[in-house]
Protein backbone atom coordinates (compact mmCIF):
# COMPACT_ATOMS: atom_id res chain seq x y z
CA UNK A 1 0.00 0.00 0.00
CA UNK A 2 2.69 2.48 1.02
CA UNK A 3 4.85 1.99 -2.12
CA UNK A 4 1.73 2.56 -4.22
CA UNK A 5 1.04 5.84 -2.43
CA UNK A 6 4.67 6.92 -2.95
CA UNK A 7 4.45 6.13 -6.68
CA UNK A 8 1.18 8.04 -7.03
CA UNK A 9 2.66 11.02 -5.19
CA UNK A 10 5.74 11.00 -7.44
CA UNK A 11 3.57 10.85 -10.57
CA UNK A 12 1.38 13.72 -9.36
CA UNK A 13 4.45 15.86 -8.55
CA UNK A 14 5.99 15.09 -11.97
CA UNK A 15 2.73 15.98 -13.73
CA UNK A 16 2.45 19.25 -11.80
CA UNK A 17 6.04 20.15 -12.65
CA UNK A 18 5.47 19.31 -16.30
CA UNK A 19 2.38 21.51 -16.44
CA UNK A 20 4.25 24.34 -14.72
CA UNK A 21 7.23 24.12 -17.06
CA UNK A 22 5.01 23.98 -20.15
CA UNK A 23 2.89 26.94 -19.01
CA UNK A 24 6.02 28.90 -18.21
CA UNK A 25 7.33 28.36 -21.73
CA UNK A 26 4.03 29.35 -23.29
CA UNK A 27 3.89 32.49 -21.14
CA UNK A 28 7.38 33.49 -22.23
CA UNK A 29 6.58 32.83 -25.88
CA UNK A 30 3.39 34.93 -25.71
CA UNK A 31 5.24 37.74 -24.04
CA UNK A 32 7.84 37.61 -26.78
CA UNK A 33 5.23 37.71 -29.52
CA UNK A 34 3.48 40.59 -27.82
CA UNK A 35 6.81 42.44 -27.60
CA UNK A 36 7.33 41.89 -31.31
CA UNK A 37 3.86 43.30 -32.03
CA UNK A 38 4.75 46.37 -29.96
CA UNK A 39 7.75 47.09 -32.19
CA UNK A 40 5.44 46.88 -35.20
CA UNK A 41 2.95 49.30 -33.67
CA UNK A 42 5.67 51.87 -33.03
CA UNK A 43 7.23 51.54 -36.49
CA UNK A 44 3.81 51.98 -38.10
CA UNK A 45 3.18 55.05 -35.98
CA UNK A 46 6.46 56.53 -37.19
CA UNK A 47 5.50 55.92 -40.81
CA UNK A 48 2.15 57.64 -40.19
CA UNK A 49 3.73 60.72 -38.63
CA UNK A 50 6.21 61.42 -41.42
CA UNK A 51 3.81 62.74 -44.14
CA UNK A 52 2.51 65.31 -41.62
CA UNK A 53 6.03 66.36 -40.78
CA UNK A 54 6.99 66.75 -44.44
CA UNK A 55 3.88 68.89 -45.08
CA UNK A 56 4.71 71.15 -42.15
CA UNK A 57 8.36 71.58 -43.11
CA UNK A 58 7.51 72.23 -46.77
CA UNK A 59 5.70 75.44 -45.87
CA UNK A 60 8.78 76.93 -44.21
CA UNK A 61 11.83 75.42 -45.87
CA UNK A 62 11.20 75.50 -49.61
CA UNK A 63 14.88 75.10 -50.48
CA UNK A 64 15.25 71.76 -48.74
CA UNK A 65 13.45 69.76 -51.39
CA UNK A 66 16.28 67.23 -51.59
CA UNK A 67 16.26 66.44 -47.86
CA UNK A 68 12.49 66.13 -47.86
CA UNK A 69 12.52 63.79 -50.83
CA UNK A 70 15.09 61.62 -49.13
CA UNK A 71 12.85 61.32 -46.06
CA UNK A 72 9.82 60.40 -48.16
CA UNK A 73 11.83 57.88 -50.14
CA UNK A 74 13.25 56.29 -46.99
CA UNK A 75 9.78 56.18 -45.46
CA UNK A 76 8.27 54.46 -48.49
CA UNK A 77 11.09 51.95 -48.53
CA UNK A 78 10.56 51.22 -44.84
CA UNK A 79 6.82 50.73 -45.36
CA UNK A 80 7.33 48.18 -48.14
CA UNK A 81 10.33 46.36 -46.59
CA UNK A 82 9.89 42.63 -45.91
CA UNK A 83 11.77 40.39 -43.51
CA UNK A 84 13.57 41.28 -40.28
CA UNK A 85 16.95 42.11 -41.81
CA UNK A 86 15.65 44.27 -44.66
CA UNK A 87 13.26 46.10 -42.37
CA UNK A 88 15.94 46.85 -39.81
CA UNK A 89 18.12 48.33 -42.56
CA UNK A 90 15.29 50.44 -44.05
CA UNK A 91 14.38 51.75 -40.60
CA UNK A 92 18.01 52.69 -40.03
CA UNK A 93 18.12 54.70 -43.26
CA UNK A 94 14.87 56.40 -42.24
CA UNK A 95 16.32 57.32 -38.85
CA UNK A 96 19.32 58.88 -40.61
CA UNK A 97 17.13 60.83 -43.04
CA UNK A 98 14.99 62.18 -40.20
CA UNK A 99 18.08 63.23 -38.29
CA UNK A 100 19.33 65.29 -41.23
CA UNK A 101 15.85 66.82 -41.62
CA UNK A 102 15.82 67.96 -38.00
CA UNK A 103 19.37 69.27 -38.42
CA UNK A 104 18.25 71.31 -41.45
CA UNK A 105 15.28 72.66 -39.47
CA UNK A 106 17.70 74.33 -37.07
CA UNK A 107 18.36 76.96 -39.76
CA UNK A 108 14.70 78.05 -39.92
CA UNK A 109 13.69 79.96 -36.76
CA UNK A 110 10.06 80.31 -37.93
CA UNK A 111 9.78 76.57 -38.39
CA UNK A 112 11.34 75.90 -35.01
CA UNK A 113 8.74 78.16 -33.38
CA UNK A 114 5.84 76.40 -35.12
CA UNK A 115 3.73 74.56 -32.55
CA UNK A 116 2.79 71.83 -34.99
CA UNK A 117 6.42 71.20 -35.90
CA UNK A 118 7.47 71.07 -32.24
CA UNK A 119 4.70 68.60 -31.49
CA UNK A 120 5.67 66.39 -34.44
CA UNK A 121 9.33 66.56 -33.49
CA UNK A 122 8.52 65.45 -29.94
CA UNK A 123 6.26 62.67 -31.22
CA UNK A 124 8.87 61.39 -33.67
CA UNK A 125 11.71 61.53 -31.14
CA UNK A 126 9.57 59.70 -28.61
CA UNK A 127 8.40 57.15 -31.19
CA UNK A 128 12.04 56.44 -31.98
CA UNK A 129 12.68 55.94 -28.26
CA UNK A 130 9.66 53.68 -28.07
CA UNK A 131 10.98 51.56 -30.94
CA UNK A 132 14.28 51.26 -29.09
CA UNK A 133 12.62 50.36 -25.78
CA UNK A 134 10.27 47.82 -27.39
CA UNK A 135 13.25 46.27 -29.13
CA UNK A 136 15.13 46.19 -25.83
CA UNK A 137 12.23 44.40 -24.16
CA UNK A 138 11.85 42.04 -27.11
CA UNK A 139 15.51 41.08 -26.94
CA UNK A 140 15.35 40.63 -23.17
CA UNK A 141 12.33 38.38 -23.71
CA UNK A 142 14.12 36.38 -26.40
CA UNK A 143 17.10 35.91 -24.11
CA UNK A 144 14.96 34.64 -21.25
CA UNK A 145 13.02 32.36 -23.60
CA UNK A 146 16.10 30.92 -25.31
CA UNK A 147 17.79 30.34 -21.96
CA UNK A 148 14.72 28.57 -20.62
CA UNK A 149 14.61 26.33 -23.70
CA UNK A 150 18.26 25.37 -23.39
CA UNK A 151 18.73 24.75 -19.68
CA UNK A 152 18.10 21.42 -18.02
CA UNK A 153 15.46 20.23 -17.18
CA UNK A 154 13.06 22.52 -19.11
CA UNK A 155 14.91 21.67 -22.35
CA UNK A 156 13.24 18.22 -22.23
CA UNK A 157 9.79 19.81 -22.16
CA UNK A 158 10.79 22.33 -24.83
CA UNK A 159 12.12 19.56 -27.07
CA UNK A 160 9.04 17.40 -26.61
CA UNK A 161 6.60 20.20 -27.47
CA UNK A 162 9.00 21.62 -30.10
CA UNK A 163 9.56 25.10 -28.77
CA UNK A 164 12.23 26.58 -31.03
CA UNK A 165 14.85 29.28 -30.49
CA UNK A 166 14.03 32.85 -31.54
CA UNK A 167 16.30 35.39 -33.20
CA UNK A 168 17.31 38.69 -31.63
CA UNK A 169 16.25 41.91 -33.33
CA UNK A 170 19.58 43.65 -33.81
CA UNK A 171 19.74 47.19 -35.07
CA UNK A 172 23.10 48.91 -35.25
CA UNK A 173 22.09 52.31 -33.90
CA UNK A 174 24.82 54.89 -34.15
CA UNK A 175 24.18 56.35 -30.73
CA UNK A 176 24.56 52.94 -29.14
CA UNK A 177 27.85 52.21 -30.76
CA UNK A 178 29.18 55.61 -29.79
CA UNK A 179 27.89 55.40 -26.21
CA UNK A 180 30.72 56.51 -23.96
CA UNK A 181 31.68 54.52 -20.92
CA UNK A 182 30.85 56.81 -18.06
CA UNK A 183 33.30 56.55 -15.21
CA UNK A 184 33.07 58.41 -11.93
Amino acid at each position, binding site marked *: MIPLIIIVVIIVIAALWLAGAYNGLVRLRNQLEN*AWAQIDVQLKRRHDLIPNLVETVKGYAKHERETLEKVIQARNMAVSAKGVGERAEAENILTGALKSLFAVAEAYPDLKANQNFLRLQEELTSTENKVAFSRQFYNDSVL*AYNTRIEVFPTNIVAGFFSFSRREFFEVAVEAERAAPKVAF
Partner: protein
Amino acid sequence: MWEQIAANRRRSTVLISVMVVILAVIGYTGGELIVPGAGPLGLGVAFIIWAVMMAMYLFGAEKLLLGGALFHELTREDSPRLFNIVEEMKLAAGLPYLPKLYLIHESAPNAFAIGRKPEDYAIAVTSGLLHRLNRDELQGVIAHEVGHLKNQDVKFMTLAAVLLGSIVILSDVVRRSLWYGGRGRRRSDSRGGGQAQVVILVVGLLFAILGPIMAQLLYLACSRKREFLADASAAQYTRYPEGLASALEKIALAGRGLSFVTKATAPMFIVNPLAAASEDSFSLLSTHPPTAERIRILRQMAGASLADYETAYRQMKQGALIGGRSLATAAPQSIRAPTDEGPIESRHAADDIAYRQHGYLRLRCECGLDIKVPERYEQKEIHCIRCGSALPIPSVLEGRAPSPPTPEPTGPLAYTRATKGWESFRCACGRTIQLSPAFAAPQVRCHHCRRLIEVS
Protein backbone atom coordinates in the same frame (compact mmCIF):
# COMPACT_ATOMS: atom_id res chain seq x y z
CA MET B 1 13.48 40.17 -15.23
CA TRP B 2 10.85 37.51 -14.56
CA GLU B 3 13.45 35.77 -12.47
CA GLN B 4 14.01 39.00 -10.61
CA ILE B 5 10.37 39.04 -9.68
CA ALA B 6 10.67 35.39 -8.71
CA ALA B 7 13.60 36.14 -6.37
CA ASN B 8 11.62 39.03 -5.00
CA ARG B 9 8.59 36.87 -4.48
CA ARG B 10 10.61 34.27 -2.58
CA ARG B 11 11.94 36.93 -0.24
CA SER B 12 8.47 38.36 0.23
CA THR B 13 6.95 34.95 0.88
CA VAL B 14 9.50 34.46 3.65
CA LEU B 15 8.72 37.88 5.10
CA ILE B 16 4.97 37.34 5.00
CA SER B 17 5.22 33.81 6.46
CA VAL B 18 7.45 34.97 9.32
CA MET B 19 4.99 37.74 10.11
CA VAL B 20 2.03 35.36 9.99
CA VAL B 21 3.90 33.03 12.37
CA ILE B 22 4.63 35.92 14.75
CA LEU B 23 0.96 36.93 14.62
CA ALA B 24 -0.16 33.35 15.26
CA VAL B 25 2.26 32.82 18.17
CA ILE B 26 1.23 36.07 19.83
CA GLY B 27 -2.42 35.12 19.34
CA TYR B 28 -2.08 31.59 20.75
CA THR B 29 0.26 32.28 23.67
CA GLY B 30 -1.55 35.52 24.44
CA GLY B 31 -4.80 33.62 24.74
CA GLU B 32 -3.14 31.06 27.02
CA LEU B 33 -1.60 33.77 29.14
CA ILE B 34 -4.84 35.62 29.72
CA VAL B 35 -7.07 32.59 30.23
CA PRO B 36 -5.36 29.17 30.28
CA GLY B 37 -6.85 26.96 27.60
CA ALA B 38 -7.98 29.89 25.45
CA GLY B 39 -5.08 29.49 22.98
CA PRO B 40 -7.17 28.52 19.94
CA LEU B 41 -9.57 31.35 20.73
CA GLY B 42 -6.61 33.76 20.81
CA LEU B 43 -5.49 32.41 17.46
CA GLY B 44 -8.94 33.11 16.05
CA VAL B 45 -8.94 36.64 17.45
CA ALA B 46 -5.52 37.26 15.86
CA PHE B 47 -6.74 36.33 12.40
CA ILE B 48 -9.99 38.25 12.81
CA ILE B 49 -7.95 41.37 13.59
CA TRP B 50 -5.89 40.71 10.48
CA ALA B 51 -8.97 40.25 8.29
CA VAL B 52 -10.60 43.43 9.62
CA MET B 53 -7.41 45.45 9.04
CA MET B 54 -7.11 44.08 5.52
CA ALA B 55 -10.72 44.96 4.70
CA MET B 56 -10.25 48.44 6.13
CA TYR B 57 -7.22 48.94 3.97
CA LEU B 58 -8.75 47.59 0.79
CA PHE B 59 -11.86 49.72 1.02
CA GLY B 60 -10.46 52.83 2.58
CA ALA B 61 -6.84 53.77 2.33
CA GLU B 62 -6.24 53.80 -1.39
CA LYS B 63 -9.37 55.80 -2.13
CA LEU B 64 -8.38 58.20 0.61
CA LEU B 65 -5.00 58.69 -0.95
CA LEU B 66 -5.87 59.10 -4.62
CA GLY B 67 -9.53 60.08 -4.48
CA GLY B 68 -8.96 63.19 -2.37
CA ALA B 69 -8.96 66.70 -3.72
CA LEU B 70 -5.16 66.81 -3.76
CA PHE B 71 -4.65 64.54 -6.71
CA HIS B 72 -5.95 64.87 -10.24
CA GLU B 73 -5.63 62.45 -13.05
CA LEU B 74 -3.66 63.81 -16.00
CA THR B 75 -4.68 63.45 -19.64
CA ARG B 76 -2.29 63.27 -22.55
CA GLU B 77 -3.23 66.83 -23.56
CA ASP B 78 -1.98 68.17 -20.23
CA SER B 79 1.59 67.06 -20.76
CA PRO B 80 2.28 65.04 -23.92
CA ARG B 81 5.98 64.72 -23.11
CA LEU B 82 5.34 63.25 -19.67
CA PHE B 83 2.98 60.75 -21.25
CA ASN B 84 5.61 59.86 -23.84
CA ILE B 85 8.18 59.20 -21.13
CA VAL B 86 5.76 56.99 -19.19
CA GLU B 87 4.84 55.13 -22.38
CA GLU B 88 8.52 54.56 -23.19
CA MET B 89 9.10 53.06 -19.75
CA LYS B 90 5.93 50.98 -19.99
CA LEU B 91 7.35 49.44 -23.19
CA ALA B 92 10.80 48.95 -21.67
CA ALA B 93 9.32 47.11 -18.69
CA GLY B 94 6.70 45.25 -20.72
CA LEU B 95 3.78 46.34 -18.54
CA PRO B 96 0.43 45.33 -20.06
CA TYR B 97 -1.29 48.70 -19.46
CA LEU B 98 -0.18 52.30 -19.34
CA PRO B 99 -0.21 53.40 -15.68
CA LYS B 100 -2.56 56.28 -14.86
CA LEU B 101 -0.84 59.55 -14.06
CA TYR B 102 -1.59 61.93 -11.23
CA LEU B 103 -0.26 65.39 -10.56
CA ILE B 104 0.39 66.79 -7.11
CA HIS B 105 0.71 70.56 -6.95
CA GLU B 106 3.89 70.81 -4.88
CA SER B 107 7.14 72.48 -5.79
CA ALA B 108 9.26 69.85 -3.97
CA PRO B 109 10.11 67.18 -6.56
CA ASN B 110 8.95 63.69 -5.61
CA ALA B 111 6.99 60.76 -6.99
CA PHE B 112 5.31 57.54 -5.95
CA ALA B 113 3.62 54.52 -7.48
CA ILE B 114 0.46 52.80 -6.36
CA GLY B 115 -1.79 49.94 -7.44
CA ARG B 116 -1.97 46.22 -6.78
CA LYS B 117 -3.26 45.08 -10.18
CA PRO B 118 -1.89 46.07 -13.61
CA GLU B 119 -5.24 47.73 -14.47
CA ASP B 120 -5.02 49.95 -11.39
CA TYR B 121 -1.35 50.90 -11.62
CA ALA B 122 -0.84 54.61 -11.16
CA ILE B 123 2.11 56.95 -10.79
CA ALA B 124 1.88 60.31 -9.06
CA VAL B 125 4.40 63.09 -9.66
CA THR B 126 4.66 66.55 -8.15
CA SER B 127 4.64 69.59 -10.42
CA GLY B 128 8.13 70.38 -9.08
CA LEU B 129 9.38 67.15 -10.62
CA LEU B 130 8.23 68.30 -14.07
CA HIS B 131 10.15 71.56 -14.12
CA ARG B 132 13.19 70.78 -12.00
CA LEU B 133 14.39 67.59 -13.71
CA ASN B 134 15.61 67.24 -17.27
CA ARG B 135 14.24 64.54 -19.52
CA ASP B 136 16.86 61.90 -18.69
CA GLU B 137 16.37 62.44 -14.97
CA LEU B 138 12.60 62.32 -15.21
CA GLN B 139 12.89 59.14 -17.25
CA GLY B 140 15.01 57.66 -14.44
CA VAL B 141 12.40 58.54 -11.81
CA ILE B 142 9.52 57.17 -13.90
CA ALA B 143 11.58 54.01 -14.57
CA HIS B 144 12.11 53.59 -10.81
CA GLU B 145 8.36 53.85 -10.21
CA VAL B 146 7.60 51.48 -13.09
CA GLY B 147 10.19 49.15 -11.52
CA HIS B 148 8.18 49.18 -8.26
CA LEU B 149 5.04 48.32 -10.23
CA LYS B 150 6.72 45.61 -12.28
CA ASN B 151 8.23 44.04 -9.16
CA GLN B 152 4.77 44.11 -7.53
CA ASP B 153 6.14 46.00 -4.56
CA VAL B 154 2.89 47.77 -3.77
CA LYS B 155 1.04 44.49 -3.38
CA PHE B 156 3.59 42.88 -1.08
CA MET B 157 4.31 45.94 0.99
CA THR B 158 0.58 46.51 1.52
CA LEU B 159 0.17 42.97 2.74
CA ALA B 160 3.22 43.33 4.99
CA ALA B 161 2.08 46.69 6.36
CA VAL B 162 -1.35 45.33 7.24
CA LEU B 163 0.23 42.31 8.98
CA LEU B 164 2.58 44.60 10.86
CA GLY B 165 -0.35 46.71 12.02
CA SER B 166 -2.22 43.60 13.19
CA ILE B 167 0.81 42.37 15.14
CA VAL B 168 1.22 45.75 16.86
CA ILE B 169 -2.46 45.90 17.85
CA LEU B 170 -2.61 42.29 19.04
CA SER B 171 0.54 42.46 21.17
CA ASP B 172 -0.75 45.68 22.64
CA VAL B 173 -3.99 43.95 23.64
CA VAL B 174 -2.06 41.04 25.18
CA ARG B 175 0.31 43.28 27.14
CA ARG B 176 -2.48 45.47 28.46
CA SER B 177 -4.71 42.62 29.57
CA LEU B 178 -1.77 40.96 31.31
CA TRP B 179 -0.97 44.19 33.09
CA TYR B 180 -4.50 44.98 34.24
CA GLY B 181 -6.42 41.76 34.55
CA GLY B 182 -4.61 38.57 33.70
CA ARG B 183 -2.33 38.12 36.66
CA GLY B 184 -4.57 36.96 39.46
CA ARG B 185 -6.47 34.49 37.42
CA ARG B 186 -3.33 33.01 35.95
CA ARG B 187 -1.80 32.42 39.35
CA SER B 188 -4.81 30.54 40.64
CA ASP B 189 -5.35 28.45 37.54
CA SER B 190 -1.83 27.45 36.58
CA ARG B 191 -1.15 25.23 39.56
CA GLY B 192 -1.65 22.02 37.63
CA GLY B 193 -0.06 23.37 34.43
CA GLY B 194 3.51 22.23 34.94
CA GLN B 195 6.33 22.81 32.55
CA ALA B 196 4.37 23.37 29.36
CA GLN B 197 2.58 26.24 31.03
CA VAL B 198 5.89 27.85 31.96
CA VAL B 199 7.20 27.55 28.39
CA ILE B 200 4.05 29.13 27.00
CA LEU B 201 4.29 31.87 29.58
CA VAL B 202 7.89 32.72 28.67
CA VAL B 203 7.35 32.48 24.89
CA GLY B 204 4.15 34.49 25.15
CA LEU B 205 5.78 37.26 27.13
CA LEU B 206 8.77 37.38 24.77
CA PHE B 207 6.60 37.57 21.67
CA ALA B 208 4.21 40.10 23.14
CA ILE B 209 7.15 42.40 23.85
CA LEU B 210 9.60 41.64 21.03
CA GLY B 211 7.22 40.50 18.27
CA PRO B 212 6.18 43.96 17.07
CA ILE B 213 9.79 45.17 17.08
CA MET B 214 10.99 42.14 15.12
CA ALA B 215 8.18 42.46 12.60
CA GLN B 216 8.86 46.18 12.19
CA LEU B 217 12.60 45.64 11.56
CA LEU B 218 11.87 42.89 9.04
CA TYR B 219 9.36 45.07 7.26
CA LEU B 220 11.77 48.00 7.02
CA ALA B 221 14.64 45.82 5.80
CA CYS B 222 12.37 44.52 3.06
CA SER B 223 11.26 48.04 2.14
CA ARG B 224 14.90 49.17 1.75
CA LYS B 225 15.80 46.13 -0.37
CA ARG B 226 12.93 46.96 -2.67
CA GLU B 227 14.16 50.51 -3.16
CA PHE B 228 17.53 49.14 -4.31
CA LEU B 229 15.76 46.69 -6.60
CA ALA B 230 13.64 49.42 -8.17
CA ASP B 231 16.85 51.41 -8.76
CA ALA B 232 18.40 48.39 -10.47
CA SER B 233 15.29 47.98 -12.65
CA ALA B 234 15.37 51.69 -13.53
CA ALA B 235 18.99 51.42 -14.70
CA GLN B 236 18.11 48.38 -16.76
CA TYR B 237 15.03 49.94 -18.38
CA THR B 238 16.63 53.28 -19.22
CA ARG B 239 20.14 51.92 -19.93
CA TYR B 240 21.25 55.13 -18.26
CA PRO B 241 21.89 54.93 -14.48
CA GLU B 242 23.21 58.49 -14.32
CA GLY B 243 19.72 59.86 -15.08
CA LEU B 244 18.24 58.40 -11.89
CA ALA B 245 21.42 59.19 -9.90
CA SER B 246 21.31 62.90 -10.68
CA ALA B 247 17.52 62.97 -10.22
CA LEU B 248 17.94 61.52 -6.71
CA GLU B 249 20.56 64.16 -6.02
CA LYS B 250 18.19 66.95 -7.09
CA ILE B 251 15.26 65.51 -5.15
CA ALA B 252 17.35 65.18 -2.01
CA LEU B 253 18.77 68.71 -2.34
CA ALA B 254 15.51 70.45 -3.20
CA GLY B 255 14.07 69.88 0.26
CA ARG B 256 11.48 67.32 1.04
CA GLY B 257 8.61 69.14 2.67
CA LEU B 258 5.43 67.73 1.23
CA SER B 259 2.56 69.06 3.26
CA PHE B 260 0.18 66.13 2.87
CA VAL B 261 2.57 63.27 3.63
CA THR B 262 2.08 61.26 6.79
CA LYS B 263 4.18 58.53 8.35
CA ALA B 264 1.89 55.97 6.76
CA THR B 265 2.35 57.19 3.19
CA ALA B 266 6.03 58.21 3.36
CA PRO B 267 7.49 54.78 2.44
CA MET B 268 5.80 54.99 -0.96
CA PHE B 269 7.83 57.91 -2.30
CA ILE B 270 11.03 57.66 -4.33
CA VAL B 271 12.87 59.59 -1.61
CA ASN B 272 11.35 59.66 1.87
CA PRO B 273 9.72 63.10 2.09
CA LEU B 274 9.75 63.13 5.90
CA ALA B 275 13.41 62.37 6.57
CA ALA B 276 15.48 65.54 6.91
CA ALA B 277 18.68 65.70 4.89
CA SER B 278 20.80 65.58 8.05
CA GLU B 279 19.23 62.30 9.13
CA ASP B 280 20.04 60.68 5.85
CA SER B 281 22.28 57.92 7.10
CA PHE B 282 21.80 54.19 7.44
CA SER B 283 19.52 53.15 10.23
CA LEU B 284 17.53 50.04 10.98
CA LEU B 285 14.50 52.27 11.39
CA SER B 286 14.43 53.98 7.99
CA THR B 287 12.08 53.06 5.18
CA HIS B 288 14.53 54.06 2.44
CA PRO B 289 18.25 53.41 2.06
CA PRO B 290 20.39 56.56 2.39
CA THR B 291 20.04 58.53 -0.85
CA ALA B 292 23.81 59.14 -1.05
CA GLU B 293 24.39 55.38 -1.02
CA ARG B 294 21.83 54.81 -3.78
CA ILE B 295 23.48 57.49 -5.92
CA ARG B 296 26.96 56.05 -5.36
CA ILE B 297 25.88 52.55 -6.39
CA LEU B 298 24.21 53.88 -9.56
CA ARG B 299 27.33 55.83 -10.49
CA GLN B 300 29.60 52.87 -9.91
CA MET B 301 27.80 50.73 -12.47
CA ALA B 302 30.00 49.69 -15.38
CA GLY B 303 27.04 48.77 -17.59
CA ALA B 304 23.28 49.02 -17.31
CA SER B 305 22.33 45.41 -16.59
CA LEU B 306 21.11 43.90 -13.33
CA ALA B 307 24.48 42.14 -13.01
CA ASP B 308 26.25 45.50 -13.15
CA TYR B 309 24.03 46.82 -10.39
CA GLU B 310 24.72 43.71 -8.31
CA THR B 311 28.49 44.22 -8.71
CA ALA B 312 28.25 47.88 -7.70
CA TYR B 313 25.97 46.94 -4.79
CA ARG B 314 28.44 44.38 -3.47
CA GLN B 315 31.22 46.92 -3.52
CA MET B 316 29.19 49.06 -1.12
CA LYS B 317 27.53 46.50 1.09
CA GLN B 318 27.78 42.88 2.12
CA GLY B 319 25.50 40.26 0.70
CA ALA B 320 23.63 39.74 -2.52
CA LEU B 321 20.68 41.80 -3.67
CA ILE B 322 19.23 40.14 -6.72
CA GLY B 323 20.43 36.56 -6.51
CA GLY B 324 22.03 34.09 -8.84
CA ARG B 325 19.37 32.86 -11.20
CA SER B 326 18.32 36.20 -12.64
CA LEU B 327 21.93 37.25 -13.12
CA ALA B 328 22.76 34.16 -15.15
CA THR B 329 20.33 35.28 -17.84
CA ALA B 330 21.21 38.98 -17.75
CA ALA B 331 22.90 40.01 -20.99
CA PRO B 332 25.65 42.62 -20.88
CA GLN B 333 24.09 46.00 -21.55
CA SER B 334 26.07 49.12 -22.30
CA ILE B 335 25.11 52.54 -21.00
CA ARG B 336 23.56 54.81 -23.61
CA ALA B 337 24.61 58.37 -24.35
CA PRO B 338 22.76 61.17 -22.56
CA THR B 339 20.27 63.34 -24.43
CA ASP B 340 20.57 67.11 -24.11
CA GLU B 341 16.89 67.79 -23.50
CA GLY B 342 16.03 70.11 -20.65
CA PRO B 343 13.00 70.01 -18.32
CA ILE B 344 9.87 68.75 -20.06
CA GLU B 345 7.74 71.61 -18.75
CA SER B 346 8.65 75.13 -17.71
CA ARG B 347 7.85 76.16 -14.17
CA HIS B 348 4.88 78.15 -15.44
CA ALA B 349 3.58 75.33 -17.61
CA ALA B 350 3.81 72.85 -14.72
CA ASP B 351 1.90 75.24 -12.46
CA ASP B 352 -0.67 75.88 -15.19
CA ILE B 353 -1.44 72.18 -15.43
CA ALA B 354 -2.02 72.09 -11.69
CA TYR B 355 -4.18 75.24 -11.69
CA ARG B 356 -6.22 73.86 -14.55
CA GLN B 357 -6.85 70.73 -12.55
CA HIS B 358 -7.94 72.72 -9.54
CA GLY B 359 -10.66 74.40 -11.60
CA TYR B 360 -8.97 77.76 -12.11
CA LEU B 361 -10.19 79.87 -14.99
CA ARG B 362 -7.44 81.29 -17.19
CA LEU B 363 -7.86 84.68 -18.80
CA ARG B 364 -5.44 86.59 -20.97
CA CYS B 365 -5.67 90.34 -20.59
CA GLU B 366 -5.00 92.61 -23.57
CA CYS B 367 -1.85 93.83 -21.83
CA GLY B 368 -0.50 90.27 -22.05
CA LEU B 369 -0.95 89.27 -18.44
CA ASP B 370 -2.36 85.82 -17.68
CA ILE B 371 -4.92 85.91 -14.91
CA LYS B 372 -6.00 82.83 -13.00
CA VAL B 373 -9.41 83.03 -11.39
CA PRO B 374 -10.38 80.52 -8.70
CA GLU B 375 -13.76 78.82 -8.89
CA ARG B 376 -14.97 80.60 -5.76
CA TYR B 377 -14.83 83.99 -7.50
CA GLU B 378 -18.45 84.80 -8.28
CA GLN B 379 -18.38 88.25 -9.93
CA LYS B 380 -19.14 88.61 -13.63
CA GLU B 381 -15.89 90.41 -14.37
CA ILE B 382 -12.41 90.81 -12.95
CA HIS B 383 -9.94 93.70 -13.09
CA CYS B 384 -6.46 93.11 -14.45
CA ILE B 385 -3.97 93.83 -11.70
CA ARG B 386 -1.45 95.29 -14.14
CA CYS B 387 -3.46 97.57 -16.45
CA GLY B 388 -6.70 97.79 -14.50
CA SER B 389 -9.03 97.00 -17.39
CA ALA B 390 -12.13 94.98 -16.63
CA LEU B 391 -12.31 91.50 -18.13
CA PRO B 392 -15.58 89.63 -18.39
CA ILE B 393 -15.53 86.10 -16.98
CA PRO B 394 -16.24 83.85 -19.97
CA SER B 395 -19.35 81.82 -19.37
CA VAL B 396 -22.06 79.93 -21.18
CA LEU B 397 -24.97 81.70 -22.87
CA GLU B 398 -28.31 80.48 -21.65
CA GLY B 399 -31.28 80.08 -23.92
CA ARG B 400 -33.68 80.89 -21.11
CA ALA B 401 -33.74 83.18 -18.16
CA PRO B 402 -30.88 82.38 -15.81
CA SER B 403 -31.92 79.56 -13.53
CA PRO B 404 -30.42 79.03 -10.09
CA PRO B 405 -27.63 76.44 -10.02
CA THR B 406 -29.53 73.20 -9.89
CA PRO B 407 -28.32 69.70 -10.64
CA GLU B 408 -31.30 69.05 -12.95
CA PRO B 409 -30.60 69.63 -16.62
CA THR B 410 -32.52 72.66 -17.86
CA GLY B 411 -32.40 74.75 -21.00
CA PRO B 412 -29.82 74.76 -23.78
CA LEU B 413 -26.39 76.26 -23.10
CA ALA B 414 -23.84 77.54 -25.58
CA TYR B 415 -20.25 78.72 -25.59
CA THR B 416 -18.21 80.17 -28.45
CA ARG B 417 -14.50 79.43 -28.52
CA ALA B 418 -12.16 82.38 -28.82
CA THR B 419 -8.88 80.54 -29.50
CA LYS B 420 -7.69 77.09 -30.46
CA GLY B 421 -5.48 76.57 -27.42
CA TRP B 422 -6.37 75.76 -23.82
CA GLU B 423 -9.51 77.63 -22.92
CA SER B 424 -11.69 77.81 -19.85
CA PHE B 425 -15.11 79.19 -19.04
CA ARG B 426 -17.85 79.08 -16.44
CA CYS B 427 -20.81 76.78 -16.65
CA ALA B 428 -24.19 78.03 -15.48
CA CYS B 429 -23.70 76.09 -12.27
CA GLY B 430 -20.60 78.17 -11.47
CA ARG B 431 -18.01 75.46 -12.10
CA THR B 432 -15.09 75.83 -14.48
CA ILE B 433 -14.92 73.86 -17.72
CA GLN B 434 -11.57 73.35 -19.47
CA LEU B 435 -11.23 72.77 -23.20
CA SER B 436 -7.98 71.30 -24.48
CA PRO B 437 -6.41 72.22 -27.85
CA ALA B 438 -7.50 68.82 -29.13
CA PHE B 439 -11.15 69.34 -28.23
CA ALA B 440 -13.16 69.07 -31.44
CA ALA B 441 -16.63 67.85 -30.40
CA PRO B 442 -19.72 70.04 -30.87
CA GLN B 443 -20.78 69.57 -27.26
CA VAL B 444 -19.23 69.26 -23.82
CA ARG B 445 -20.86 67.98 -20.65
CA CYS B 446 -20.32 69.77 -17.36
CA HIS B 447 -18.93 67.28 -14.85
CA HIS B 448 -20.78 68.94 -12.01
CA CYS B 449 -24.34 69.66 -13.18
CA ARG B 450 -24.29 67.13 -16.08
CA ARG B 451 -25.73 69.64 -18.56
CA LEU B 452 -24.72 69.64 -22.21
CA ILE B 453 -23.13 72.79 -23.61
CA GLU B 454 -22.96 73.55 -27.33
CA VAL B 455 -19.43 74.56 -28.30
CA SER B 456 -18.81 76.50 -31.50
